[in-house]
């Protein structure tokens, strides 16, 4: 049964007629044309679909859209501001931390969520935060480097 829901996505308000159990990911990609979040496993396992809800990481592929009514949703597209890209995005570019790039949305959003919670996390906390974000290309070293850079760990050499 279709209902009209009001969503706040990237600081903009949208009214969408949708079945309330539709996943947030489908609404973002299909209705709002926000293709930053990716469809990976569809079961909340891989993290490619990660978005922020009230600044917390959320797996958009298992979240019914009705659950985010009244909350602030931020997608990859909403990280940048008029002043420029988000520091996490800048760090990933500088480290060239992408192979195919499919997991990158989830990596960037998860690091953003971590930094929202703790602006200076330990390397161990960074690794824990990215533990359930899967990358199939084996780009983990570059991704971790980018995350450390975003978190302000400047000691380049050692990344593990």
């Amino acid at each position, binding site marked *: 049964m279709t209902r009209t829901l009001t969503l706040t996505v990237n600081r903009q308000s949208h009214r969408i007629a949708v079945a*309330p*159990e539709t996943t947030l990911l489908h609404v973002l990609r299909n209705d709002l044309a926000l293709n930053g979040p990716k469809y990976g*496993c*569809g*079961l*909340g*396992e891989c*993290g490619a679909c990660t978005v922020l*809800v*009230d600044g*917390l*990481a*959320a*797996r958009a*592929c*298992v*979240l*019914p859209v*009705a*659950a985010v009514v009244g*909350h602030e949703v931020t997608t990859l597209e909403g990280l940048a501001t008029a002043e420029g890209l988000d520091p996490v995005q800048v760090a990933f570019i500088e480290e060239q931390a992408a192979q195919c790039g499919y997991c990158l949305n989830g990596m960037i959003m998860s690091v953003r*969520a*971590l930094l929202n*919670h703790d602006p200076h996390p330990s390397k161990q*906390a960074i690794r*824990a*935060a990215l*533990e*359930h974000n899967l990358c199939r290309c084996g780009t983990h070293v570059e991704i971790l480097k980018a995350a450390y850079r975003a978190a302000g760990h400047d000691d380049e050499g050692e990344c593990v």
Partner: protein
Amino acid sequence: MNGSASRRPTGIDRRPGSLGGEGRFGVVIRPPVYRLRDGTFVCSRLLGVDRNSVAALPGRIEVVIEGNFVGVVATSLQAAREAARRLHLEWQPLTATGDSPPRGRALEAESSRHSGNTVETAAPQGRYLTRHYGWPSRMRWGDEPGWVVADHAHDRLDVWGPTATPTLLKRDLMALTGLPQETIDLHCTAQASGIGRHCGDDAAADATLMSRAVGRPVAVWLDASYVRDVESLGQAQRIAVSAELNAQGAIERYRNRQELAGSDTPVVALWLSGVLDTQRHDDGATSEPVSPPFSPYTFRDQRLAAPGVSREVHGDDGVLELQHGFARESFLDEVARTSGQDPVALRLRHLDDRRGVELIESVTRRAGWVWPTKANEEGLSADVNRGRGFAYAQLPDRHGRIDEGVRSAWIADIEVNRITGDVSLTRLVVGQDSGPLVDTAQLQEILQQRVLGVARPLLAREPSFDEWGENGGGESQSKLTAETRDVARAPCSTPMKGSDGEQVSALSPLDEADLSPGVAVIANALFDATGVRFRQPPFTAPRVRQALQGECGTSGSEATAGRRLSRWRWRWLAGAAVATAGAAAMLWPWKSPIAPVARPAANLYSAETIERGRLVAEAGDCAVCHTGQGGIDNAGGRAFDTPFGTLYSTNITPDEATGIGNWSYAAFERAMRHGISRDGRHLYPAFPYTAFAKTSDADMQALYAYLMAQPAVSAEPPANELSFPFNMRALMAGWNALYHDAAPFRPDPSRSDLYNRGAYLAEGLGHCSACHSPRNVLGAEQGGERYLAGALVEGWEAPPLNALSRSPIPWSEEALYRYLRGGESELHGVASGPMAPVVAGLGELPESDVRAIAHYVAAQMDASVNDTDDARSQAQQLVARSAASTSGMEAGERLFDGACASCHVDTGLPSFTQAKVSLALNTNLYSERPDNVIQSILGGVHATNVSGIGEMPGFADSFSDSQVTTLVEYLRARFAPGEPAWSGVAERVSQIRKDDNKTHG
């Protein structure tokens, strides 16, 4: 032929498509305006048809046009209905004749008091009174909806359907088709002692016209839509009776004038198709008059005008006698009540017939007649009025010999529900004096047969079959006393056995007239009960209701009803305690069908009542069971696997054909309290009427109001698949005797109000025990220690709610409240499976009610009020213990890390999609059986509308059975390490997957 044969002739059942390959289904479209008034038929003229508008629709649509008759024929009823909706027709509006009355006015005008209908003036010597009585051209459309089928082929016509007037129907079909009499075969059920023509005849003619056009058998669904024909055809008879009373209250002058003698009104299709000249019908009035109607009374100055109608045209003397008897006996009752006399005494005053006087005296003695009637209001619910009426008839025998004729005196007791308009005949005392020969048993049998025949179409409700007679019902309210003396002639050649319709129809028409007091006696009792005079039958619930509402403005009874509703308010507990007495005293006829009624109007109940009913429905979780997988709310079809076979929930939307649209309140209440369907069948106790019986009257009424105010959905649930002997519904009567206590809820005075309120909700509407109590081998809930001891329902385990609870942390009242209110308890987990929609429903209830339920359940568990510090620290220990796996089950761990950990492991970083309650506290992992864990993994957890429950995807499509087994065993070992490993997990996984596939399609 019995009733069911008439509804489903020649193997045609309700499923479209089973007419055989060649059968078709037809729907008629009547003109926007058509009516018969005083013998003249007028209707809108059909100007054009756009057949292209339905050309693209499926179902081999054929449009049948004959004059102004429009029918649509298709291969299924749905297709025909859809095409009828879409078919573009152009009608010429009726402007020339102007006065097109709004629909429904015709009936209304004759049902109640209206200015112009009543003339009352002071006469020189006393009082002068005139009343008009009517008789409709059509009675209702029969007892319940059903098929009418016509097959017009090879110059012959076969018709299957119900009719009360086979002779007239045949005559009309001959006119319609031009076929000679011998080529028309009516395979019809002549209804026992019909009191007039009903719409079955119109439907038969409709089917005939369509069948002739398409050259195949055509079935028409005869249902409430034919009520338009009843309204449009209006009155057949109108009789004016007047009298002048002298100072002593005796009738000095008596006049009886036939104002309208439409006699039998031909079927609508005859008028529409143009076969009948629209101006020709009043020829009956110009034909030779017959002898005046006989009246048993003697008045000093009496003039009885003959009806201007010949017997050939009329064709049914019995009905004519009924009509005049109705007018006369109603009028005498009105005269008596207006002048403050005992209606019986008034009749005796003018009756100069020893045998008649003796009969009346005997019957009044037998019935305990007193004047004024003292309606015994004790034990009646507030909406029910009782009344008592009397009527008498004497008729000449076949040869016109008055002394040899039949005398009969009737006294009827009725109950009227002011809210629903339902009239129930609670007692009938009939005395019949037919002459010298006595065969009491036979006469009594015939009376029972005939009384039913009269009462059924009048009241749209049957008295119970098994409570007849002196020895039948014991102290029951419903009994018939047949007073028989000096039975003269054997009333019919064949003895009556059973309810065989054919034999009844074989009786001579005059015998119908023996029952002529039957109509007036009910009208008189209705007046006694309600103060509203019905001057035209039938007295069906919608008409009674309408009349009661119409009368309200003047007599103030609407004001009373309004006050009563507002006083109900939201006081459940008070309602439960007070209203139960009424329910207990109301004996609805056991097992007999309660006749269908038209769906109550949406505005019948106040918004307050409907809102209250919505809350009752939420408390009772009606929609949880009565909504199929992915189906429309309350339209039924959800499958229930029971040990005895598969049951499907029914459609409880107010659709008249497939839902409960034609259930009267009485039928609804009986189903809720006794588990008996409107048609008299027993319902299976999967429907928790054992719990619903405890609902208060006020809540029951509100629930009925709410359900009837919802949109009607046409949906037929699948047939139940039960194994023998459980497919025998009659067995449920024995089951009920053993296990069902229909007593409404009684509060326990030693407990608090909060506890009693909770008990009322949990034991009654909430029917917690329906799922949470184990059932015995016969499917009855177990009580005592086993009450709320947990059970398996729909493949889920409903955990114990008593001291047997296996929750790792003991529940508290506060935790129960938060779980029921928000779907989640931080120390126990979330509601899932069939419990999720229950919580969603409870979300609609006031906080105090949910607190009451929590209080009651907590008392069953001996739970504390709040979570203790002990419990909290114990919980912390459990969570800490499970942080790392020590089981050494590698395969399981890998599955868990890959699929579950992203939500179910606390990394210290909060996430929006993280599971809120640690698996270490989840009751399901501590249970004796793995079912709920398996269900959650396969199907996930879904409750979009309860924010606390969260959402988990199902893994049925990504995990194999062995992976699920591995994972389940791992979860048990890691999160409930103190519990023994489950055995047989693999078997349960494959079984549950199989069952889920079945129910989810």
